[in-house]
């Protein structure tokens, strides 16, 4: 099977591709990171007039190609420096000029039109000593330049605006990169041909980038991939009698697809595990149910995730999409969210405009999970600027209904665990009723005339409605934190606060509280008690759970109302 590799012309091809893999992987890394793919493709193609000249005048083809690549690089670089924008357009402009020059030379000067096309395709099977020498020079220069200039190229690519301040600002550094790419692609031209230079210089590095997180690893993997794909491609082409260039290109394309698939699998540990366990497990899963790692559901907001966890207990894994203390109005899904949603059987959402991205997330991830909108059957639903005010959980009676719905959905989906879910829900419902009664007692002890709430995000309509609190205003007078207050609204609010003798303004934990502070400062009210509106607090805070959050809010509100004299503790929920 390996006998074919013992032919001398195949061995020369092997040596050539192994040497070329070095500059291809090293420079390919910078081509990919610096967005030079089009340039690297163009500089090979732009060698065309040089090849025509060499063919017509009878000197060595690599020399002609090198001369044309030099002209091309100098032209692109100087035009690109003069006009800083649109580097790709400039590359295209110079490329067209080179190609036009090549066509004129070929058809009108040397009348060699018939074999022009073949100049752009090289062959790994026709390598001579000169080709190998040129490739070796390119490889050596690429290694030296990577060692010496690599960190400059990295700094410039990472942060071009700061390059000058960082001492990586010299344009010569970028010129060196362009010139080296020109030299290396020219060297590759005679091996794989101009049109397939990309296969060697761009694709392996692009594949390696998918699988690595640091530049040195990326470069090593890119070199290894280029070498592997080159050798495999050459061997395959010899075995199947196909041209080596296109075979290598096809292989590197397949390598890229494989890298994509591998990255996809690496980011979904479950998928990888399933793949590793193989077909036997899949067959088993077909008979015994696919939930070998237990029931698993997704919840959008921190409150919903906590409530679902309380009902699910140990018998349920809950993937939470939003992090504590972040504003749900500004959520953008991460890749892990997409994969979690794709794997789940049930997705619980809070509803309204807080998590209206859920449906899109589910359809993008290709999930067939059942989506449960907890806001649909609530006993108390307030009007808001959207279809309704989505902060329903601040009325524990709504939470009670939600718990019942979660229990029913979980029990129906995972009948094996239904008993446990029912027991968990029963004790949690008891705590919710204690919470509701406790807050009612605390707030009831404050005289009704002192219960005036000003917060910086009107998320507390349900809480206020439930416990007889008068909402005087919100510093951000809108239902979402994306809105901005107007001057008139702020002035009016400051007036009202003074007129009503409001003692405290309550900033919300996840919202920047400068506006609340400013209002408090200008009106003499206190702004030291924060409320949890949209999200739970972080892991170690008292508001890390739904019960803790509502107790913390009640405590802050009572302290604000009473000038810090009294708080609110509900021992029964602990």
């Amino acid at each position, binding site marked *: 099977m390996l006998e074919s590799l013992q032919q001398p012309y195949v061995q020369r091809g092997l040596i050539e591709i192994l040497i070329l893999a070095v500059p291809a992987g090293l420079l390919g890394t910078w081509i990919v*990171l610096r967005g030079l793919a089009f340039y690297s493709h163009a500089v090979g193609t732009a060698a065309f007039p040089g090849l025509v000249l060499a063919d017509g005048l009878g000197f060595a083809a690599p020399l002609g190609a090198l001369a044309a690549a030099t002209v091309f690089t100098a032209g692109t670089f100087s035009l690109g420096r003069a006009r800083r924008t649109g580097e790709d357009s400039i590359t295209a402009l110079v490329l067209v000029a080179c190609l036009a020059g090549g066509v004129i030379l070929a058809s009108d000067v040397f009348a060699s039109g018939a074999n022009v096309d073949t100049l752009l395709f090289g062959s790994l099977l026709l390598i001579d000593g000169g080709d190998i020498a040129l490739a070796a020079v390119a490889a050596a220069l690429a290694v030296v330049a990577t*060692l*010496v*200039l690599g*960190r*400059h190229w*990295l*700094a410039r*690519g*990472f*942060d071009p*605006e*700061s390059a*000058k*301040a*960082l*001492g*990586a600002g*010299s344009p010569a*550094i970028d010129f060196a990169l362009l010139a080296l790419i020109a030299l290396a692609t020219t060297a590759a031209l005679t091996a794989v041909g101009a049109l397939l230079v990309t296969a060697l210089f761009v694709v392996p590095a692009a594949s390696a*980038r998918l699988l*690595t*997180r*640091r*530049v040195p*690893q*990326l470069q090593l993997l890119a070199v290894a991939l280029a070498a592997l794909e080159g050798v495999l491609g050459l061997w395959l082409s010899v075995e199947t009698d196909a041209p080596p260039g296109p075979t290598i290109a096809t292989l590197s394309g397949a390598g890229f697809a494989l890298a994509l698939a591998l990255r996809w699998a690496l980011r979904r540990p479950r998928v990888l595990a399933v793949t590793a366990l193989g077909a036997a497990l899949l067959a088993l899963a077909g008979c015994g149910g696919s939930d070998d790692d237990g029931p698993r559901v997704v919840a959008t907001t921190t409150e919903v995730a906590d409530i679902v966890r309380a009902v699910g207990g140990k018998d349920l894994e809950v993937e939470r999409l939003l992090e504590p*203390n*972040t504003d749900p*109005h*500004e959520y953008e899904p991460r890749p892990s969210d997409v994969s979690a949603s794709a794997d789940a059987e049930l997705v619980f959402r809070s509803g309204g*405009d807080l998590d209206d991205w859920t449906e899109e997330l589910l359809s993008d991830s290709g999930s067939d999970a059942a989506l449960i909108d907890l806001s649909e059957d609530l006993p108390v639903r307030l009007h808001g*600027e*959207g279809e309704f005010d989505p902060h329903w959980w601040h009325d524990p009676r709504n939470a009670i209904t939600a718990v019942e719905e979660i229990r029913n959905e979980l029990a129906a989906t995972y009948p094996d665990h239904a008993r446990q879910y029912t027991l968990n829900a029963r004790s949690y419902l008891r705590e919710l009723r204690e919470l509701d009664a406790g807050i009612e007692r605390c707030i009831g002890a404050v005289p009704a005339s002192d219960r005036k709430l000003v917060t910086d995000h009107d998320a507390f309509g349900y809480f206020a409605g439930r416990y007889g609190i008068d909402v005087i205003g919100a510093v951000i007078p809108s*239902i*979402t934190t*994306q*809105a*901005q*207050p*107007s*001057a008139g609204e*702020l*002035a009016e609010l*400051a*007036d009202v606060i*003074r007129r009503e003798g409001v003692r405290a303004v309550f900033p919300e934990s*996840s*919202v*920047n*509280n*400068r*506006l609340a502070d*400013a*209002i408090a*400062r*200008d*009106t*003499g009210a206190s702004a030291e008690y924060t409320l949890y509106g949209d999200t739970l607090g972080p892991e170690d805070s008292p508001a890390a759970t739904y019960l803790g959050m509502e107790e913390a809010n009640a405590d802050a509100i009572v302290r604000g109302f009473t000038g810090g004299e009294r708080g609110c503790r509900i021992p029964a929920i602990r």
Partner: protein
Amino acid sequence: MPDSGNPVTLAATADLAAGYAGAAAIEGVSFRIEPGQRLGLLGPNGGGKTTLFRALLGELRPLAGSLSLAVGCATVPQTERSRLDFPVTALDVARMGALSRLAWWRRPGRSERARAIAALEAVALADRADAPFGELSAGQRQRVLIARALVQDARLLLLDEPFTGLDSAAARRLEALIDELAAEGRGVIVATHDVDQARAWDLVLCLNRRQVGFGAPESVLSREVLEATYAGHIVEIPVNGDRQARGILPPHHHHHEEGE
């Protein structure tokens, strides 16, 4: 106002104009910053804050007036999306600060690595040194870029709207770090939209294509100056007594659709 003949001035401009392709984007900029001062650079989007930074970094030549820098600047830019998937760790980014301290052919060695780690420690991110830059939070990324400036040993730091996208805890942390940098004798210029924040610093420079005001916040931030700076986006909050509080409407950083 600082003494104009002060020999330790970090940077000073006199009637500076700078811009692109010969057209001035900012004009008449005259300011100076001394060691240990925090300067809030206020102005609307497109008001020339970035142009001034680029002039200080030496990327733009003055079209008129003078610009003198006694020390090297370091910049802490906003994080663009493209930067987030760059394959570098926090430590890699901090080490980029060593480039300016070495001859171009010299490779950074152990001492540069130690400096980078010390700088990450100074911004309380030593434990995240090996984390990919793109996986850090917005506040952590700002601090890594500040660590890079510390490795550069820059005496003057330019922070381009560093509070954008930070939650209040991260913003407080960054404010404290800025105070520390100033306490070490560095100058810090912070482009910001937050007038209240700038009030707490030593100097403000109001820029709206030309310099509207420069000096101590209490003397510069009058209603007239703010109106000229932000061209009418002023919020006035009437308060008890004869004092009036003013604020600037925060600009829209996010382009989400408004709730229906």
